[in-house]
Structure formats: structure tokens, C-alpha cells
């Protein structure tokens, strides 16, 4: 048996031994906690609209986002967010709370290496790819929009 064949057989065997993630509970927790975060965001927005007569829905939405970002960063700093994330999975990552956590957690972690070379430069190690891809995608969409608009 040559090496490649041996490795393939071994990896196929390992694959069959790996315990599988339990889909149903994972999905349920993600749905419940993710949904709860959305409800919280909506509550902030609706309350602001109800309290302040002059506030536009767009402004209220921005404040709701700021509120969620703050809350996620605070919970990250208190060391609670990762425990919630371990149960919720995508439920906390997909909403803006995940983005907030992905910036706050490396900022905390690399503080020991100094403000500039530690915290500031390492802050985006997790969120960086999201920002890069977001910008690239928006450029492509913008170009498509521009070309279609010209006709």
C-alpha cells in the first residue's frame, strides 16, 4: 500500500469516527438566542420612536444598532459573551453582536502587547476579512448598478 492510499484510507476512517454535531439542538439554540437579539433590537427601535416624537425611523434603527454593539462589547469585556456564543453559535455571530465581539475580543486579548502594536493593529484580525469582503462586494455591486443605470 503506498503512502497516498494509506493516508486516504486513514482519513476516510477518521471521518467515520468523528462524532457529529447534533443539528437540532444547535439550530434551536441559534434560532432562540438569535431571535432574542433581534427582538431586543426591535424593542430599542420601537421604544425610541414612541418616546421621541421628532426621531425618524432611520435614526431609531441606528440607535438600536449602537445599543446592540455596546451591549455585545460590554458582555465581551465581562467575559460572558463567549459562554453565550458557545451555546448560540450562529445566533450570536450573524447579528451585529458577532461583529462587535469579533473586534472587542482581539482588542482585549492583545492589549498586553501595547496599545499601538498590540491592541490597534490586532483589533481587526477576525473582523478584517469581513470588512475587506464587504467593501469589495459593495464596489462590484456599485459598478453593476452604474453600468445598468447607464442604459
Amino acid at each position: 500500500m503506498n503512502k497516498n492510499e494509506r493516508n486516504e484510507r486513514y482519513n476516510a476512517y477518521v471521518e467515520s469516527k468523528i462524532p457529529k454535531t447534533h443539528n437540532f439542538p444547535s439550530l434551536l439554540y441559534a434560532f432562540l438566542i438569535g431571535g432574542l437579539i433581534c427582538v431586543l433590537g426591535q424593542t430599542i427601535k420601537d421604544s425610541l420612536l414612541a418616546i421621541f416624537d421628532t426621531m425618524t425611523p432611520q435614526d431609531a434603527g441606528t440607535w438600536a444598532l449602537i445599543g446592540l454593539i455596546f451591549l455585545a462589547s460590554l458582555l465581551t469585556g465581562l467575559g460572558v459573551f463567549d459562554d453565550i456564543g458557545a451555546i448560540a453559535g450562529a445566533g450570536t455571530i450573524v447579528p451585529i453582536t458577532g461583529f462587535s465581539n469579533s473586534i472587542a475580543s482581539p482588542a482585549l486579548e492583545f492589549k498586553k502587547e501595547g496599545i499601538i502594536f498590540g491592541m490597534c493593529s490586532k483589533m481587526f484580525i477576525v473582523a478584517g476579512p469581513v470588512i475587506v469582503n464587504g467593501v469589495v462586494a459593495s464596489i462590484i455591486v456599485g459598478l453593476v448598478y452604474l453600468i445598468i443605470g447607464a442604459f
Partner: protein
Amino acid sequence: MAKKQTIFFNNQPRIISSYSIAGPKEKYSVFAPYFDLVLKNDLWDCSSYEMTERKMLEHVIFNAIERAKLSPQDIDALICGDLLNQIISSSFAARKFDVTYIGLFGACSTMAESLAVGACLVDGGYFDKVACATASHFSSVERQFRMPLELGTQRPPTAQWTVTGGGCSIVSNKGVGPKITVATFGKVADYNVTDANNMGAAMAPAAMSTLLAHFENTKTTPDDYDLIVSGDLGKLGAEILVDLMEYHGYKLGQNYMDCGHCIYTNGQHTFMGGSGCGCSALMLNSYLIQKIREKEYKKVLFMATGALLSTTSSFQGESIPSIAHAIVIEN
């Protein structure tokens, strides 16, 4: 006398003293009563986790020496290693001792590697007393190899939990204690496992290779040992090793245990169990050595396994080479 990978010690150096340290999570281990010191918090009054790891290493070395009723000047060489880049914990800890220092990198196999190298040096008559030590800290290792600690992601089911802990053994040509009779150094094995979250599967072939060489060279079978201990294969890796050995005609039965698999309890959500240099170092220098001293186990095959990857190599898509070293401890 050497036979390919295996060395038979003529003078049979002894482990005259040992000391272990464990972190706050390890306090709930079933083996916790055997640990010499359990930390109350995981920073231990240090300003970074790297410094905590270094302090743990200094502490185990110092106390193991003291327990042997020696002073650091009596030690001829300090042989140690750890998981951090450029083995900083070991080298920085060595600053504290005015002793010849031999730094090793064998990833999680360091405890067995340092004892095997130390036993060779003592058996050959080059050194009288050597200190063999290693330690790992969950938080320092995690931030080097994986994601920031507070990042709210889920760990895959094959993940293992780096043990916060460490241990030191003093190997000497005189004195009382269990003897190191045989050492088998491993060969690097790579079965093209690329998943850095599945260390057990990556390391099991290396463990198999070392065990096969050991049994063949020493003409023994698993039944000749009271206990066969592997380092940190974890639940999955240990199961794979049992299967691989059975495929090659050796049956690992009730006398086989894996430190990583049994160090944590089920409720601690560590999935496949413990890993890291500290895992096997902690277990050997606490529970195992005490049971060997008490002659509950008379002949133990202690093998620690290590995954020799770096963050650079795994991001570049390289597979994970692994190593395993084994020693036989008898009393």
C-alpha cells in the same frame, strides 16, 4: 545499549522527586487530590498568561529540586520545553536557575522526550542529576494557536482543551525512586490530517509507530505492562490508537489509559478531553508517579504524543506531522 529507536539503560536512572501544578479548571479533575498545587485563579498574580506559564514552570522546577532535598546548584542540567513560540516559557524560566539548560521542542510530547533525553544523559554517566520539566497554560496556548479567548464561536466536537498545568521530575543516578529502564524515541508520522481541531487523529499514527517499534524492540506485548499511558490523544485519538494497534495485532486492553481522555470530567465540556504539554506532565508527576511509588503499578509504559504544527503551517494548508516518545518506568 541501543536497538534502532529503543535504548536500554544499563544503570537505570531513577526519578528521585517530582512536583506538579494545576490550573483552576483542573481542580475538578478526579485526579485533583494528587496534584501538589492547584492555582486559585488562572493569572496567578501575573500581568499576562505567558508570565503565568513561566511562573508555573519556575515553581515546579524549584519545588521538585527542593523535594529531593537538593538546591539548584546540585542540578547538572535543566531539560525543558513548552508550546509557545521559541519555547519562551522554558528559556525565560531557565534564567532563574544557574544551571546548564537544554531546551527541547516536542510539542505535547515534551514530558516523555525530556525524561528520555535526561535518562540518556544520566545513564551515560555524563550528568548526575537532571531536572526534566514542562508546563502549558490554556490561555497562552489558545491565543497563540487559535482564536482570541473571548471570541464567541463554537468549538468543533473533535476539539480538545489545553491543560493548565505542569510538572517536573528529577532524574538521578543515585537515590531512591522508580527506575527508567527503557526509552523509545519516535519517528515523525504524517497521515495527511490537516484539521488542527482534530489533534487526536493527527497524533494517533505517531503513537502507533512508537508503540510498534517499542514492542518489537523490547520483545514485549501490551500485557507485560501494568499500565500503558498515552499523553493527550483525547477520546477520539485513543479510540483510533486502539483500532490501529488491533490492526497490527496488539490488543490494548484495560491496562491502557489516555491522560487527555480522563483528566477532565464529562460536565466540563472539553469534548475530546485535555491536551498540551501540561496534560501528560501533570498526570505523570502526580497520580502516576505516586501509584508507581506505592507499587500499585510496577511497570508502566509512559508515552507522550505531540502535534508538530505551527499556525503558519496550518494556514498554509500543510498537514500535521506528529511524534511520540515512550519510556518505561519500573518500581
